[in-house]
């Protein structure tokens, strides 16, 4: 079944995200990436996943896979409260604009990113921003790790339950343990 956008009217295509049907897919992409970056929006600080917040899972992911982290909006404050310092604080459109530039040297100045993982942005903002990258950043792969289908990412979950989301996130984080 072709997945539907979470907000029903936000139809995209012809080019649409492939569905992450099992965590191994995301895991393999992250493993394969040389310079991944994780862009975390403010909603990651609000979503409860069991007894933790989404942002806590993302910190685990970033640490264990050594992914550079960009905190958009005021998400940085929540990271710092957890003793985790993101690599950059930038607005979502600003980081996207840079990711679309193949000559940009990345958040650490060491070279262009080849994979951008988005999570925790307002749905429609992620939709439009990922659309920008879909069309104008052919050098970049994108993954959405929200539990809703983001058709403009290269890879996205379909609309999945919180339970499945937690399972997937845990698995991705776990798989990356070295």
């Amino acid at each position, binding site marked *: 079944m072709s997945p539907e956008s979470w907000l029903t009217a936000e139809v995209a*295509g012809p*080019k649409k995200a492939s569905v992450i049907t099992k965590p191994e897919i995301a895991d393999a992409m992250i493993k394969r990436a040389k310079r991944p970056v994780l862009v975390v929006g403010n909603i990651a600080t609000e979503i409860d996943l069991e007894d933790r917040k989404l942002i806590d899972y993302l910190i685990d992911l970033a640490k264990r896979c050594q992914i550079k982290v960009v905190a958009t*909006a005021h998400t940085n404050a929540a990271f710092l409260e957890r003793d985790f310092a993101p690599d950059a604080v930038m607005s*979502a*459109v600003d980081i996207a604009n840079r990711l*679309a530039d193949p000559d940009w040297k990345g958040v650490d100045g060491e070279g262009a990113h080849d994979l951008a993982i988005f999570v925790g942005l307002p749905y*429609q903002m992620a939709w*439009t921003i990922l*659309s920008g990258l879909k*069309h104008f950043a052919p050098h970049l792969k994108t993954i959405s790790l929200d539990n809703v289908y983001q058709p403009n990412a290269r890879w996205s979950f379909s609309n999945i339950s919180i339970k499945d989301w937690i399972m997937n996130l845990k698995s991705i984080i776990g798989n990356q343990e070295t």
Partner: protein
Amino acid sequence: MGTKDINISIKELETELGQIRDLKFSVGRLVQESWTEPQGPTPFPSITALRGWDMTLLKRYRPFYMPFCDLCCLCTFGKCDLTGDKKGACGITMSGQQSRIVLLAACIGAATHTSHARELVTHLISEFGEDEPLDPGGLSIEVEAPNIRLVCGVKPETLGDLEQVLDYAEEQINALLASTHTGQEGNPLDLESKVLHAGMIDHVSMEVADIAQISAYRLPKADPEAALVDIGFGAVDTEKPVILVIGHNVPPAVEIMDFMQDNDLAGDIEVTGICCTAIDMSRYSPRAKIIGPISWQIRYIRSGIPDIIVVDEQCIRTDVLDEARLQKIPVIATSEKNCLGLPDRTRDPADAIVADFINGSADGAFILDPEKVGEIAVRTAMQIAPHRKRQKVPRSLEEGIEEAKKCTQCRLCRRACPNDLHIPDAIKAFARGDPGMLSDIYDSCVGCIRCEQACQQDIKIHSLITLAAEGKLRDESFKLRAGRGAIQDIEIRQVGGPIVLGEIPGIVAFVGCANYPGGGQELAEMAIEFANRRYIVCTSGCAAMTIGMYRNEDGKSPYEIYPGNFEAGGIVNVGSCVSNAHISGAAIKIASVFARRNLRGNYQEIADYVHNRVGAVGVAWGAMSQKAASIASGFWRLGIPVIVGPHGTKYRRMLLGRSDHEEDWYVYDARTGEEVYVGPVPEHLFVAAETKEEAMVMIAKLCMRPNDTSRGRALKLTHYIDLHRRLIGAMPGDIHRFVRTGADIPITMKEEILRILDEKGWKETVIPDPTLIARQKTEQQP
């Protein structure tokens, strides 16, 4: 421009009456002897006359495109798939297509204000005559029409003079619209330049509309102490007959109030309004009551309170008639642009129309005569009110709960809600008798009823929300300072210096629509924050209403706390959407009244001045409409940045600077002709913020300008750093880009900042007399 004007100038004429010297007269054109200012290079600029300036801006602030659709379906070659680097059948690229859509939106916006202005001016001329003088501010205002003077190079003195300005605006919009035809402009930057042109024209037309209505209707004339008027559902005395007006073009509402006045009914009827007509009628009479922004339409109509609805133009729900029919409220359409499918009864006697409304044989009428509308609306309301039968659905809490029990938890409502509100959970709780969650949803609900459209159980979700929040609605009663109109020259003289030197940290204009991502309260909080920080806060339209619909612990609205003066710490409501021209006008007047630059037909130089020196930022937190797009475009062409909320990414592109591209941030030093690095100030021209916290930090940052003195820059940095620390939790990572010399460093943070500068390998630079225009470097700057 191609006008058919006749100009005759005769140096000497021998006649039978004697000799006449220096006779000049003109037909259809303004005579400008009284204005001695020399004409600048670009009076009545064509659609490419300012292309050079546009490209200067667009080189720094490149579009970042976020296509809202992968396809183009504009012509029968399509649909064309433009994904990635594919081109359409006509050859257009995805970036070209996005810019084209932006241009279309800007044209729609500019056309809307221009047509509004045209209708208004024509009506006012028919009522007051074309010689009615323009007087938007009495003795307080000498530069009565800064946008018109700047763009057109003329100085309008009467209502009749505005017609030529509108001729020009209409001609330009026509040409811009033509550029969007298949096979015309496809270069993204040329399209963007045309977007900026549309925006500039929009501000001219808005100015026409507002100075015309201020002058003819005697609205507040640049009055910082304009009356405090009532706003909110709860401010309405529902015991009285109630008239509701919706829209933007005020003559029908004015005629309603005049009819009441002439018939000694002024205290007997409530005239209430939604959207900018409400704002403008409250400028005409402080007795008028404002219900709220656009999002209040459904909830107010469904409340059954209004006895008659009069709509004019713009931002009116197109299903207003359907909703009104359910409540048996008659509707009068008054604009040729919005006939609602109703029969034209302009020539029918008022008695007949009133009778048809009362006996229910007609549920609406299209009437193109404001005076007649005034009479009919008042008489109908008076006769219907005593027999008003409220049709509120659901009728009681119990009935609402029963309705909620039909919910199957399919989640389609939430998936239709633009703000992704947790409706299914709230409905479930409501069905169990707990209205709390649903009442919380009210705070962030934009009243679009998309949820209801999606619900297959036909649950009146929005009505349940307002039912759950009934107490909140009843409690909505606040004070709003009526739109004051323009900014006085004397105010500009007083703040011009501190603004240009950076000692007033900025002008923040909260404008635009009410498509808020998280409720209106956020906007009020932002306005209060910046007023407390002694920025000059300006506002207009729906944003101005929203700021008023907020109370502090003492029950006071921001307008009761902060002065309406254009000064540090003021909250200045200029008026309706068309009053936005006074905000751009204030920036322009800083260049002319304070800095004594020539305005006349001198757009590029003035925009360069504003961009480099006037620390102004527009915030359109709930921008929704095409008018918002054109209003923003007009600010961009003046080099004034605009911040939108997250929904603003749907405008399809941002105009973003790259702070990491050092080469982008050089200006000419007018004193030496040298090119000087000034840092990314302002960093972006059009940018979306994700949250109000991020927006506030951006506002402070985007107020910095190359011309800031060290004292000014230190102050601006203090606000930026303080907000960044408080809201984002740390020192900003880019301080080194904004410190030019040691004296720019805020004294209280000296050591910490010096350490950061050291780490970043910061080097001192000079503070230039900044300009982006190469040829200006030889001229002396004030």
